[in-house]
């Protein structure tokens, strides 16, 4: 059982704000993903929970106990590092066993626990190899096994998949999801890859420049982004964002006119997802020449340029057009998101 509370936690280096006023309760057994571009403070937040970095403000509470002044080893957390940080002079078996050894766990239980952990990540056949003799994926699994062998209260994972190739990433991602379900341990996972965040998380925290932008389930964040940054960060492709002006319930921008919106007068950013719009013969809300076309197999991505920004629409996979051909795009008003042009915050209809 481990509930983690971050009470207004902050990290400053002089004038530089690494993490600002992070306030969140992470439920027991929750899989929480910290997501954001590099330098957004997500890793710093995790390192503060691990005790590798001191919080300059606020309190970190694990299992009802304030841990700010505790050493990493006293916090009962396990961490998987981006570089794996395996011990190169020890073989796989000794690497996995190390946490048991230094924590003086009853030596009689070591062998069984190491073997159980290594079986969970399918490393049984490699126990006598050194890390240098393993592939990237195998090293990653040693790091995982070393983290789970102790059955800690909290799992911390710092971009564990970013050093793997694309194919291995998908299978290891599935393995991590399965493992966290099986072990039922509170997990905090840091990534800059929104696909990992969407697939793994119970809840996602999106950060930018040290500030939390939105906390919510993957569906929440995808369907109701709290601001233009989240909208432009989540989804593949990210949400289309067009800057323009609303007057009388109609949004106008270059080559664009969307009517039937319930928003006050003024400058706004209009957002919609590529799959929510359709390419039509005539009478669409956007009429522009095709800028580029990408065949994706199951669909065709058609892009036009509005105000210099790329606007993409998913068309049928049989759709064909030439670059420069005029195209008409239907954007249903009900599927549109409006954000304030000044603050970027969502305008609630």
């Amino acid at each position: 059982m481990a509930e983690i509370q971050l009470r207004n936690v902050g990290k400053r280096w002089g004038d530089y704000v690494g993490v600002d006023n992070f306030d969140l309760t992470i439920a027991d057994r929750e899989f929480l993903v910290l997501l954001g571009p590099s330098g957004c403070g997500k890793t710093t937040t995790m390192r503060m929970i691990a005790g590798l970095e001191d919080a300059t403000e606020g309190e970190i509470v694990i299992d009802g106990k304030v841990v700010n002044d505790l050493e990493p080893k006293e916090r009962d957390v396990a961490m998987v590092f981006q570089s794996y940080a395996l011990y190169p002079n020890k073989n796989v078996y000794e690497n996995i066993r190390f946490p048991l050894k230094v924590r003086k766990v009853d030596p009689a239980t070591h062998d069984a626990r190491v073997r159980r952990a290594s079986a969970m990540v399918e490393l049984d056949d490699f126990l006598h190899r050194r890390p240098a003799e393993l592939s990237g994926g195998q090293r990653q699994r040693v790091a995982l096994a070393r983290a789970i062998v102790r059955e800690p209260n909290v799992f911390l994972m710092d971009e564990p998949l970013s050093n793997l190739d694309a194919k291995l990433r998908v299978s290891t991602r599935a393995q991590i999801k399965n493992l966290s379900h099986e072990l039922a341990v509170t997990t905090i996972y840091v990534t800059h890859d929104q696909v990992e965040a969407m697939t793994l998380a119970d809840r996602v925290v999106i950060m930018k420049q040290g500030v939390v932008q939105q906390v919510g389930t993957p569906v929440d964040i995808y369907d109701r982004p709290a601001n233009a940054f989240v909208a432009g960060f989540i989804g593949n492709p990210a949400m289309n964002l067009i800057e323009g002006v609303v007057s009388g319930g109609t949004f106008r921008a270059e080559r664009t006119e969307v009517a039937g919106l319930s928003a006050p007068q003024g400058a706004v950013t209009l957002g919609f997802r590529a799959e929510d719009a359709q390419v039509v013969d005539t009478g669409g809300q956007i009429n522009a020449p095709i800028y580029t076309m990408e065949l994706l197999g199951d669909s065709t991505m058609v892009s036009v340029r509005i105000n210099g920004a790329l606007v993409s629409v998913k068309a049928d996979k049989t759709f064909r057009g030439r670059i420069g051909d005029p195209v008409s795009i239907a954007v249903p008003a009900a599927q549109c998101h409006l954000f304030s042009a000044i603050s970027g915050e969502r305008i609630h209809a």
Partner: protein
Amino acid sequence: MATASETRMTPAKAVSFSLVGLWLFIAAFPFLWTFWGSFKVQADFFSKADWTNALWGTQTIAETGSAFTGQGYFGAWVIEAFWQNVINSGIVVVFTVIISLTFGTLGGYALARSGFRYAFWLLIAALVFRAMPHITLVSGYLLPFFEWNIWGHLPTTIIVLVAINQPFTLWMLHSFFLNIPKDMDESAMVDGCTRFQAFRHVIVPVMWPGVITTGLFSFLLAYNDFTVTAMLLSAENETMIPAINSFLGTTQVEGKVMYAVAAVVSATAPLFVLILFFQRQIVSGLTAGAVKG
């Protein structure tokens, strides 16, 4: 498999091979010459009449009845008790290396992991001290050493040698530690180590090539030192190098020079063995910083 173009002898290759051969000869000659000459008598090795006497041992045959003699070695080791100097050197070297490495690893680790700016300035200060001539330390301390009545003893010399050597060991070990990712300590600390346990169980085992290389350089400094040991040690506590010097300094008596030659060969032999024994570690240590594993 060597291809035809690799085995064919071109003029350029012939020139480069002969240059390497010439260099080898020039580099090795003094050692071979001394080694050969150490088995002759002084009248041959320092012959005024004909230098080839040193090669054939004309006088050696005349004096001892054989082309080779162990007189020099007998004189140095038995008559002049050179073994005492060897033991002194051993004590000085062992303690200098152990103390330098202890402070060097702890200090180098601390400096490598410290995020503070003063770490940089400490290292710069160390570099300045390293650049100073050794004699500056000795001359400055001579008077206090006399006053405190600690002049002439081995521990005093060891302390001064450590002081001279420490900046270098700090620098060298510091850069070795910088090459070990911080993740490794942090991982060990999350796994349940204290900072010191992480250092001992995780970092030091990875560091062995660096420690051995640094230790070897410390060894060489202490082993070969003349300035400090000649100034600070009394005659009965002399290490090998000043002892050899004093053999040379008494040329009025015939035979003493040959003691020096024999002692030089005796002092050099262990170095060859040491370098050959540790060459793998030295090379991996010297290049560890250059290439990322």
